């Protein structure tokens, strides 16, 4: 390596490494990882009226939406363990999801048109989550009605668990499922977030 000019090494060692330099290198890595098929989990963090939301996708579709209260670092660690450790911040692959969420919060969108990857859920939970989008914008169902909807009227508690473990809150509208007496039930993003979403949809 002796024929590299010493001047260049001097420059290299003395030059500062700025955040811009690293950001540009990161962008290059995002692009090449995508084109080489290495981007098993891409994620980005977007701003919303409910605080920062983490969006993550696999090549099959959106796999996770997480509220800040869930601790985004922990969510990413969980994705690394459950899906693949090849987790990279790669905002571009989440452009469509980010745009549709923006439109939803701006009340110009009522249904999401995104490919979803439900592989984090299994069995009955997954079945319930697949049916949740059938509850239309601004409507609500009780856990009991939801159990009937998936053809298992006795599985009310299991429906509750399926809603509570929904990996795609907001996009898969588990916030539209309430207790039979009309009270809220739980919500992964907290009751305030659930109330805010229901209010927003009701007044749209």
């Amino acid at each position, binding site marked *: *390596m*002796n024929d*590299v*000019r*010493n*001047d*260049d*090494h*001097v*420059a*290299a*060692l*003395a*030059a*500062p*490494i*700025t955040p811009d*330099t*690293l950001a540009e*290198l*990161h962008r*290059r*890595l995002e692009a*090449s*990882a995508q084109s*080489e098929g*290495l981007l098993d*989990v891409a*994620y980005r963090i977007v701003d919303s009226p409910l605080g920062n939301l983490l969006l993550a996708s696999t090549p099959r579709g959106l796999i996770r939406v997480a509220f800040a209260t869930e601790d985004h670092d922990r969510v*990413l*660690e969980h*994705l*690394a*363990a459950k899906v*693949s*450790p*090849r*987790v*990279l*911040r790669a905002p571009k692959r989440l452009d469509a999801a980010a745009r549709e969420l923006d439109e939803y919060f701006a009340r110009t969108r009522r249904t999401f048109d995104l490919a979803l990857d439900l592989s984090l859920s299994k069995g009955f939970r997954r079945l319930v989550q697949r049916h949740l989008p059938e509850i239309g914008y601004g409507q609500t169902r009780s856990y009991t009605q939801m159990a009937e909807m998936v053809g298992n009227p006795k599985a009310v508690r299991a429906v509750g668990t399926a809603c509570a473990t929904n990996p795609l809150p907001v996009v898969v509208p588990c916030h539209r499922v309430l207790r039979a007496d009309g009270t809220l039930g739980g919500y992964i993003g907290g009751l305030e977030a659930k109330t805010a979403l229901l209010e927003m949809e009701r007044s749209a």
Partner: protein
Amino acid sequence: MNTKQPFEAVVALHGTAVLRVCRSMLGIHDADDAWSETFLAAMRAYPDLPETANVEAWLVTIARRKAIDVHRASKRNPVPVEDLPEAPTALGVPGADDTELWRAVGELPPKQRQAITFRYLVGMPYADIAAILGGTVEAARRAAADGLKTLRRTYPGTIAEGARP
């Protein structure tokens, strides 16, 4: 359950040190390519990396190999250096003016320069440095020591206390 951290955390934690290694080996103009090749290769192999592996040494090993590849691929004439910002480095031996120190480091023979880069920019133990450079731990220690001796002569400033081999 797999407890490996997300690859993004690896990039965030080691991106700067790997760029330092690439720059130290290639100069500033080709370092970016070597950095990109390094992290792409690392991302490809990451799922198979044992959980107990030393991620930093693993990355530096890849970076060194990629730097050699990039160097071989670009047998062009080096581009003349343009105006350099007079800012101190973000990483490095603590002290007033790192720029002058690294200027002196840049003039060292490759092996000494690498030993010093791995030791003082990345903070690696000599056992890891020896594994990467080849040769014994003692040889790695000596390369860094010889480099420092030269530095004390060519840069008689403040390499003093902090930078002992």
